[in-house]
């Protein structure tokens, strides 16, 4: 009887409630399972029984061509991963700079603020494909003597676009940090820059982690667009195989590889968001 929790036994009332909850959740799982299976079966049946299914299957889901093209596409994907790596670094730096520029106050900083605002407005509005064309064919056109690898141009174009998105997300996060935090920091004698770096940005980042991760997932697939410049990435490799075999299976393979690439990040984003949500609901304790 020394352990007080051991002495406690749930009452009949509580046991009854638990039984009821268990029954209700079992019923919900069953309904969800049956409806999902039924939906998948109907969708599958509709596709498979359509008159031209056999031809489509041959063109898009050809196992031999998939196996044959897989190594080349995987090799192409390596280029996408490298582009993604460098673009992420550039976006992190440029996005932060833009967010800070937009958050500067006072009339002195009007030109800087206007520049950052103009940039984010422009590059959030421009389709990525058009930026790719402008950078990919425009910059080399300036000086034909210098040859810049297309993958580098693609990285620049992707970074230009995503910096604008990330800057806006970061700015929203910085504005969500309560003004009293700035007041406290400035009262200690911290300069504006140190207040941003040590107090505002660390808290802002925490608030926008899910949104940033979402942008990263989006960028993961958009690096595939560099193929339009002729960079030999996963999609370009798929296109090369497609051009010789007249079979679209390589595109499906490339698509699945992109999904596989983004899958861990998507799950991680869900996990982080869910964890943050529960933390907020339980009143702030970790």
């Amino acid at each position, binding site marked *: 009887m020394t352990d007080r929790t051991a002495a406690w036994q749930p009452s009949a009332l509580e046991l009854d409630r638990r039984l009821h909850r268990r029954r209700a959740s079992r019923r919900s799982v069953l309904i969800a399972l049956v409806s999902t299976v039924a939906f998948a079966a109907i969708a599958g049946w509709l596709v498979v029984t359509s008159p031209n299914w056999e031809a489509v299957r041959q063109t898009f889901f050809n196992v031999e061509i998939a196996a044959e093209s897989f190594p080349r596409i995987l090799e192409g994907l390596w280029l996408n991963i490298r582009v993604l790596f460098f673009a992420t670094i550039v976006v992190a730096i440029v996005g932060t700079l833009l967010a800070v520029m937009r958050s500067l106050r006072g009339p002195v900083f009007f030109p800087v603020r206007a520049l950052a605002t103009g940039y984010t407005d422009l590059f959030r509005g421009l389709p990525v494909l058009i930026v790719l064309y402008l950078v990919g064919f425009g910059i080399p056109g300036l000086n034909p003597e210098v040859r810049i690898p297309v993958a580098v141009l693609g990285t620049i174009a992707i970074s230009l676009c995503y910096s604008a998105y990330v800057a806006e997300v970061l700015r929203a996060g910085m504005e969500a940090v309560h003004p009293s*935090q700035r*007041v406290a920091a400035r*009262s*200690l004698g911290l300069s504006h820059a140190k207040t941003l770096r040590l107090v505002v940005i660390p808290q802002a980042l925490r608030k926008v982690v899910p949104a940033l991760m979402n942008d990263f997932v989006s960028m993961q697939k958009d690096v595939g667009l560099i193929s339009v410049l002729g960079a030999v990435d996963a999609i370009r490799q798929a296109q090369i195989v497609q051009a010789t075999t007249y079979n679209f299976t390589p595109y499906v393979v490339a698509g699945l590889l992109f999904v596989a690439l983004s899958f861990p990040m998507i799950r991680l984003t869900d996990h982080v968001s869910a964890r943050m949500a529960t933390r907020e609901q339980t009143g702030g304790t970790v």
Partner: protein
Amino acid sequence: MTAAHPSAAHATVLELQGVHKLFGDNHVLRGVDLEIASHEVVVVIGASGSGKSTLMRTINLIERFDDGRILLSGDDITDPAVDVDKVRARIGVVFQHFNLFPHMRVIDNVTLAARKVHGIAPDVARDRAIGLLETFGLGDKVRDYPDRLSGGQQQRVAIVRAIMTDPELLLLDEITSALDPMLVGEVLDLVRDLKNQGSTILMATHEMSFARSVADRIVFMHGGRPLETGTPEQIFDAPREPETREFLARITHR
């Protein structure tokens, strides 16, 4: 009231001369004159909206004001050429809502200004911080994040953060108003310790019994200026102004 006399500058920590502050048409401070001597504890009382908080924020240069002068140990801190960060580093502030940095551990909250503003070596700052935290019964909270602490503990950490770099003046702005009545005592005890150690304090509060026991001087703010100033005995036992009497009657018979 009178012109600044430089010979007495070392003894006067803070001097306000005709300070005005307007929020749009709202004239919040209407010519505040106030002097605080070294080691003096001055408690500002007054109804909400009488300008207590604005006065605090103005002294710390967080709020830009509209007229007058403020001298800190004889230096005119309202000179436009003055580096406001340097001025703020000389004044310790504690807020009603603590305003600890939630992403930093207690130790990092407390040592931040020492490391990043005063250029004190991290291990030196750390030793001093741990010493102070232990003195004020927070020795076991050094590694905790603020959200794991009670309100009273958070406010005590905030006070340690403010005194960490030996400020010339401490501004305490209704530091117990957001606390559970059970936790008010532990924070006020800390303030009493600071007084005994010789800190110069300007404090706004609604804790009248504490004001009576700790203050060297009470300033009653009314209509944006100090209406009546005196020792606790003068103000609480024999207030001259009818407004002071009315305020004290209301607040003590709540």
